């Protein structure tokens, strides 16, 4: 197997020249069109009648600097909540999914409960669950009532596990029946097959939606601030109240996007790989 680089015939040389010319043209065109489009956008935006006011209201560097520490402190709350809620929701979602796929009549009520759970919490706006759990439930003054933050976290876990349960279930169903047959024919029991053969494959299959839900969760954890704790968005809101300027929201938004980019990039990569694998299979 040679790895010769130089094409040898006249036709090939001509083709190479043509291609090289095309590559150069491509780069030029790309640069040119980027420049033109970029200029157009800049002119359109900054030349618009309200641009000065937009800049003053949304892009004031002084205000951004002043608001940053508080917003960062709030973001730390988001990150911590994300961490715990993501694990909690994954664990609870998996349990609910397993309950929903149980076979046999004894498990009928468990299956029904699990189904009802996924329907309820996929249909219920997070904000209602949050209000009920963080404002309503403490009013009962039951013993050992946890803090608002924990209650808010529970609301997030409950809501998201409703989604994740369905994601896991779709993953379990997407494992080919022949894998079940192969495992059972070796003498493995239902549990062993689920544990060692089906679940590992199911989780791999649904990695893209799981990651997607994590990105969504990252954006939603901040809603606990409706119940009091100060997250990044709320910190921006407070700063906005001080100054009557929307720059703090932009700062919070940029931080959120920066925080999300790695997660989104991983999600896209995993999703495309899965899509291509599906295409390739």
């Amino acid at each position, binding site marked *: 197997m040679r790895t010769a680089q130089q094409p040898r015939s006249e036709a090939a040389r001509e083709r190479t020249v043509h291609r090289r010319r095309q590559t150069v043209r491509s780069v030029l065109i790309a640069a040119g069109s980027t420049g033109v489009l970029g200029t157009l956008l800049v002119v359109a935006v900054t030349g618009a009648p309200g641009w000065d006011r937009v800049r003053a209201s949304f892009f004031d560097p002084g205000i951004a600097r002043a608001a940053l520490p508080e917003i960062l402190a709030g973001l730390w709350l988001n990150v911590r909540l994300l961490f715990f809620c993501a694990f909690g929701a994954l664990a609870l979602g998996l349990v609910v999914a397993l309950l929903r796929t149980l076979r046999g009549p004894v498990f009928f009520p468990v299956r029904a409960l699990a189904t009802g759970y996924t329907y309820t919490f996929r249909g219920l706006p997070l904000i209602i669950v949050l209000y009920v759990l*963080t404002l309503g439930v403490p009013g009962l003054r039951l013993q050992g009532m946890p803090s608002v933050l924990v209650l808010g976290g529970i609301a997030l876990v409950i809501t998201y596990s409703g989604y994740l349960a369905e994601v896991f279930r779709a993953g379990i169903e997407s494992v080919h029946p022949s894998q079940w047959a192969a495992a059972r024919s070796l003498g493995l029991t239902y549990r062993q097959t689920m544990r060692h053969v089906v679940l590992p494959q199911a989780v791999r299959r649904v990695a893209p939606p799981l990651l997607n839900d994590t990105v969504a969760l990252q954006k939603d954890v901040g809603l606990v601030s409706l*119940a*009091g704790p*100060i997250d990044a968005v709320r910190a921006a*809101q*407070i700063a906005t*109240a001080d100054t*009557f300027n929307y720059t703090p929201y932009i700062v919070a938004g940029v931080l959120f996007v920066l925080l999300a980019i790695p997660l989104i990039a991983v999600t896209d990569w995993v999703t495309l790989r899965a899509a291509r694998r599906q295409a390739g299979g």
Partner: protein
Amino acid sequence: PQESTPSTPSASGLACGKDALKTRTGGKLTIGTDDPAYEPWFTENKPENGKGFESAVAYAVAEKLGYARADVVWTRVTFNNAIAPGPKPFDFDINQFSVTEERRKAVDFSSPYYLVRQTVIALKGSKIAGAKSLADLKGATLGAQVGTTSYQAITDVIKPSGKPQVYNSNDDAKKALQNGQIDGLVVDLPTAFYITGAEITDATIVGQLPQVGVPEQFGLVLDKDSPLTGCVTQAVDALRNDGKLTELEKQWLAQTAGAPELT
């Protein structure tokens, strides 16, 4: 406003010294308010500086109960959390809470420290800027913060033909007013003066809403059946009786006299 409300336990005979009070943290007095805390009730969102009417009242109450300035601890609780039923992270909360019978089911109130009127403000060029009566406001889009007596004033007193706009906070509502998204904003009178005087200078006070039923008063909020309610009420009563409240009102809310009345 001199009569304290009937369900307030009698303060007489209570030992209200610092050592006798069972506060959340012994020897300290924990006072709640919202974040941000608004002018003119507080200044610079710093309740601990003693400036602004409510901050000053809070420190005066603390003093009456025997707490030095250093013994006062501030905590931040959102408006809606503070008046919701449930355990409270403060000994008392001061945040422009109007005393209502509904709220009394969920929390305790001290005797009132301020008599308040709801007020409509609007941009100077607005179609309702010159309104003289409630009837002039019927066709306006009005806004208020959710869960406040201001919102109730819209639906119960003004009864406009259009749907009111409701905001999570007065900040959002002020922004909407400034943007022209609402014609008028309903807030309490001192807040109205502060907004029109310092925040949205091209806004003006349209007028005070008529008082229906019992006069609206601000009281300190305490946990339901709090052991402190009696003593706090006693302290507020004492401040009222020795003229301290009037003095603080003059100092921090001086300009609030003379807003037009809407009929």
